[in-house]
């Protein structure tokens, strides 16, 4: 069995020792094992979901070679990706999906890059930039040389009072990890975090919330809300201590808080409803409401409009603008939706493989520029064009 495995692996171009434990492999090698397992004589369809999102250019090239080989053998390969160069390099036919709907399927020769981007992005009137009139204030959040071994390295940036800064980058680049570390979930991070010029030690989420820094997780249903509890309980959760009197909870105050947040954010649902009965957009509003109830000064939002319908998306954007400009909060938004980033943010940071590769104003930012910064780690490298 070991011999057969070794033969299969080298057949595909991977030189790995089949007796080694998967636990000791790098992500790329683990992926190769996965693919080797899937590849069999008679394999008819192979579906790969964002396979190169965590690979170096070299490793990606190996993968392209495997796919070419499979194609030659008659296997149909479905390759899901948002990297233009790769899609162009590999595909015979391209299908574009947007917001859960099929947009277009056409031979690769008929779709050029601009057409593809337009199809992917759509002509959504809602995502327009609203010009800023209010001036920016002093630096509310400052990160200096943040590093977490093996995850991100030497990240420094500032977010001013009233500013919305976007963080773009590929999946797995380390953006969420940076935000979570600032929020206090990674005590091993080194570097300095300053809130309103005062150094703060991100020891725990509770400590950061005290300082007015809050974080909205990417995984809304598992981490952003507690689906089996009511809207009221969810919204009140971080504020319980404050609402208590002599250690006992005040149901009335909780309900008042929940009601006022519901009105402010236009949450569709009764405050006694379970969050599990709400739509994605409304759940996100509940997740946001619970933090707004604590009067934060810095908002770290991780993919805040992921999986939300366009109408609610626009609402969330309006809320964000209001929070930043009228309420003078500093907002850091992680997003993989480039049009959203361009429409909502005053500045854009780009993270690639744990490093900061771009820090540009909205005026200078274009989708191409952001994508370029997100997919290369050193100049000149990339999939064979």
């Amino acid at each position, binding site marked *: 069995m070991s011999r057969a495995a070794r033969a299969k692996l080298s057949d595909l171009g991977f030189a790995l020792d089949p007796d080694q434990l998967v636990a000791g492999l790098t992500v*790329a090698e683990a992926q190769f094992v996965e693919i080797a397992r899937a590849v069999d004589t008679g394999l008819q369809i192979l579906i790969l979901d964002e396979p190169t999102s965590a690979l170096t250019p070299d490793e990606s090239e190996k993968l392209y070679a495997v796919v070419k080989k499979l194609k030659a053998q008659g296997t149909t390969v479905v390759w899901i990706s948002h990297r233009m160069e790769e899609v162009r390099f590999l595909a015979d036919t391209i299908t574009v999906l947007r917001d859960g709907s099929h947009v277009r399927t056409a031979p690769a020769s008929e779709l050029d890059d601009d057409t593809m981007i337009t199809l992917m992005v759509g002509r959504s009137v809602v995502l327009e930039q609203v010009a800023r009139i209010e001036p920016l204030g002093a630096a509310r959040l400052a990160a200096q040389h943040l590093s977490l071994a093996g995850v991100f390295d030497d990240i420094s940036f500032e977010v001013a009072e009233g500013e919305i800064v976007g963080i773009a980058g590929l999946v797995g680049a380390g953006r969420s990890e940076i935000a979570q570390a600032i929020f206090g979930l990674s005590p091993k991070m080194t570097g300095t975090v300053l809130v309103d010029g005062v150094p703060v030690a991100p020891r725990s989420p509770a400590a950061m919330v005290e300082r007015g820094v809050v974080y909205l997780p990417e995984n809304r249903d598992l981490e952003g809300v507690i689906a089996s509890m009511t809207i009221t309980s969810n919204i009140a959760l971080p504020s319980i201590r404050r609402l208590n009197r002599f250690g006992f909870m005040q149901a009335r105050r909780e309900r008042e808080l929940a009601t006022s947040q519901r009105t402010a954010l236009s949450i569709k649902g009764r405050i006694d409803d379970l969050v599990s009965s709400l739509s994605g957009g409304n759940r996100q509003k509940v997740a946001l409401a619970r933090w707004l109830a604590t009067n934060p000064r810095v908002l770290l939002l991780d993919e805040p409009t992921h999986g939300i319908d366009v109408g609610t998306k626009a609402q969330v954007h309006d809320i964000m603008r209001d929070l930043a400009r009228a309420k003078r909060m500093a907002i850091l938004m992680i997003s993989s939706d480039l049009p959203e980033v361009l429409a909502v943010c005053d500045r854009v940071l780009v993270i690639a493989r744990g490093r900061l590769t771009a820090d540009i104003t909205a005026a200078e930012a274009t989708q191409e520029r952001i994508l370029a910064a997100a997919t290369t780690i050193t100049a000149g490298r990339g999939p064979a064009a």
Partner: protein
Amino acid sequence: MSGTTAKAPLIHRLRERAGFSGGAAALRVRFIGVIVFQLLLVLVFTALAPRFFTWDNAQSILFTAAILAIAAAGQTLVVLTGNLDLSVGSIMGLSAYVVFNIASGSPDLQPFVILIAVVVGVVLGATNGFLVAVLKIPSIVATLGTLSIYRGIVSFYANATEVTSGELPRWMRTLAETSWLGLSSYVWIALVTIVVVGTMLRMLPWGRQIYAYGSNPKAAHFFGLNSTRIVIGAYVGAGVIAALVGLLLGARVGNINSLLASGIEMSVLAAVVIGGVSIWGGAGSVYGAAIGAIVLATINNGLVILQVQEFYRLLLQGLAIVAAVAVDAVVQRRIQSATKRRRTMGADA
């Protein structure tokens, strides 16, 4: 550093030096760790009481360990899937009672004694498996319940009567007494059983599926593995082994009443956990569990020789479980952080 085109041994060496083999090495170290711990125990006890280190004493330890080791092998199957089986003692007692009752009542069934035990084990094990895999009752709750149900059935059945060894098939009684090559027959039986189960786990597809499911149930689902079949299979295996151990125990003890093997669950689990079978599932081997059984027997024996109170045994056993689980947690974390690390920084880390 990714060097995937270099020769394999070079990668290993580079990897060791760069500390990249974190996950895999951790598992290996864990297994060797138990062996080292056992050797340390022997050293310490011999230093404290030289008569510990005699052949007679070793025989005694191995004999005590034998029964525990076989039971631990069965429990390993279940723990590998990430579950527990607290009903082993009750299965042992029920199987022993049923078999010997039937055998003494109808002499023509005596040759089928083993088969009857197997059937009992299958039924009881399958019930456990059903509760855990189909009804999705957490294994601690399910087997805590079946522990009392099976034990209750024994006393129902037994109605407080005993079966004495005089009524057992002759060959069973002699088997319990014989020695081959200086070691009790039970030790040899244990050896054979452990090798057989260990080989099955390593070679048979079903064995590998248990490891796969245990280390990552969600991925196993994507692999197309049938989790229900795997879990029920593990519980049936554990049930059959427990039933057979019940036979052995009954033959040795002589008088079988409804309390046979009551409370053995703790020791079996202790042996398994100490032996490096991770409570999270997916890691460990029956060989480790067997060594865990020897460790427990050694501690017991050593304490007796040192004339230390019996109560320290419980205390030490409990501490050993906590220590073993803590070590396993560290191993687990090593494995997880090893994979996560490379996700973000790539091979440049």
